[in-house]
């Protein structure tokens, strides 16, 4: 059984098949990219994986166990974290608070303990903070600890979202268009970080991306999608040379 498998999954909104029996599997330690024109169903697949949508049919397997029926808030605990295409940070909180929310799936203290802030809570808080600091160091975010998200530029928010996902110590991270809205330099930084996430932290990366230069630089394998259907899977070069993919992007 491979690390993460999507088995002929479909998602139907009324008469529209947003995702049409898509299957793929991701090996441990791989950087796997999903590409495709707008509306191809890329983000829908992510929402299926993070269980925000219920699939019409098909199954999801993570580390050999079926996660198709797992409620969305338990996905993070299993070790799957994600970012969002248009940034879903908690805007009226500091970066530190945002990253600490990323630790939520590791929270062990009960409500009454939190209310009294018992020594056990303090101990747990320090541990969470220590992990958060590691991520801050990894992504060079030291300057923004006490800053409110609402006052930070887009490029920084994008990195903070990756940081928040990393704080949950995932085994698989889903990056939804990590380079959208970033300039060339920031995209370069992002490509280094994506590779570091894999090589240094050993986290498997599954991402959706439009920027082909970024895709070529970091991906091990690419899956091309159009109208909810898989067009091709393979190395970046193979997929880009595939006639169906060229037809999807340029027209037949």
């Amino acid at each position: 059984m491979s690390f993460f498998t999507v088995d002929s999954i479909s998602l139907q909104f009324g008469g529209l098949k947003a995702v049409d029996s898509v299957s793929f599997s991701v090996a441990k330690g791989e950087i796997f990219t999903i590409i495709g024109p707008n509306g191809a169903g890329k983000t829908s697949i992510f929402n299926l994986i993070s269980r925000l949508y219920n699939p019409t049919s098909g199954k999801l397997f993570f580390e050999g166990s079926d996660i198709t029926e797992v409620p969305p808030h338990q996905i993070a605990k299993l070790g799957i974290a994600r970012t969002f295409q248009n940034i879903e940070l908690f805007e009226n909180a500091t970066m530190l608070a945002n990253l600490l929310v990323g630790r939520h799936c590791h929270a062990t203290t009960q409500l009454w303990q939190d209310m009294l802030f018992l020594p056990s809570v303090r101990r747990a808080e320090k541990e969470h903070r220590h992990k958060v600091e590691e991520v801050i160091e990894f992504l060079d975010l030291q300057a923004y600890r006490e800053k409110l998200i609402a006052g930070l530029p887009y490029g920084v928010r994008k990195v903070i979202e990756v940081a928040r996902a990393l704080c949950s110590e995932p085994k698989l991270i889903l990056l939804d268009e990590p380079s959208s809205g970033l300039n060339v330099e920031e995209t370069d930084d992002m490509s280094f970080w994506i590779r570091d996430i894999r090589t240094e932290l050993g986290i498997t990366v599954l991402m959706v991306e439009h920027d082909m230069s970024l895709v070529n630089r970091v991906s091990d394998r690419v899956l091309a999608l159009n109208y909810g259907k898989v067009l091709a899977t393979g190395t970046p070069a193979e997929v880009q040379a595939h006639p169906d993919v060229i037809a999807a992007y340029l027209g037949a």
Partner: protein
Amino acid sequence: MRFIFKTDYDQDIRILKHGGYWWSYGILLAALIALPFLVGSYLQSQVVFVFIYAIVGVALMILTGFTGQASLGHAAFLAIGAYTAAYLQKLGVPFIVYFPAAAILTGIVGAMVGFPALRLTGIYLVIATIAFAFIVEEILARWESVTHGNEGMRVRTLDIVGMPLPRDGEAFYFLCLLTLVGSIVLALNLLRSPTGRAFVAIRDSETAGKSMGIDLAAYKVKSFAISAAITGLAGVLFAHKMTFISPEMFTLLLSIEFIMVIIIGGAFGVHGAVFGAIFIVMVDPFLTALKDDVPVLAASVASSFGMASDAAAKLRDTMSSIGSAAGLKGAIYGLIIMMFILFEPYGLYGRWLKVKLFFQLFPLYKKATFKRQKTYVKSERNR
């Protein structure tokens, strides 16, 4: 400006972050402890009402300010706390039992109200909580064997293990102060722990919260339960302060007053609850004074400008009849809320922070610091 050199994670966890906090809050606490021995009984009584409103404010702050779930049903929670106290006291249950019992019962009811909140958002949740408040009001009026219906219930003097705490005494004042400080500490503890962060996450983005592992249903119910339980405590104190409770004391207008507490105070921090409570308790005597004085003043100004004395008397009568018209208070409250939302969205506490920053940065303060920016980029909310 104060720059703090941080060498320890505890510095960020602590509630009193640096020496300035110890000084300012220490002086405030000392002043509050000394207050009953310095001022007259009227002012002391008003301050007790400020405490009670502030306790409800803290409760509502947890629910509305932190979790983002609006409620116009908090008068009902207050009523449940008050009636639990009155009924249990009548049965001879001691205060040290019925005080927590009221909180627990109200908390359970709050959790039950929280369940519809899982599916309702925004204005629909507000309507649901109003409906809940009406149901409670109706039950209080009809369940005569327990609540004595519209006749109301007399509440005897508070009694802690044989020691009476009359409603105007210093001891009762300190009990209210202690409850307020306790609920504030509780709220601050929540804020610096995973539970409070989950609340704030739900307020800002439910979708992201869900994918970070926050069980929305559980935390919304928890927020409702905690908020209701604290309001229940306030209800017990309220019952003892009023010495008489009846269903018409816990109407929609009271719920609106509670919402005003946090809107006017500033719905983003615990300070706001206290600021708002001070405002609400002080605005009522102010309006009453205005009602009595303005018509007389207007008439005398008019007559000094040459208006005939019978016309001036007519003006005075017209103005005082407008002043005593039913529903005027509600209208003025509505106006105050609108003005605050439009011109001071961060409330009195926000204004306080702005003034403080002005002096900290003087002369470098720039107006744009607090300018509200519209964010247009919002992801599709996966509802």
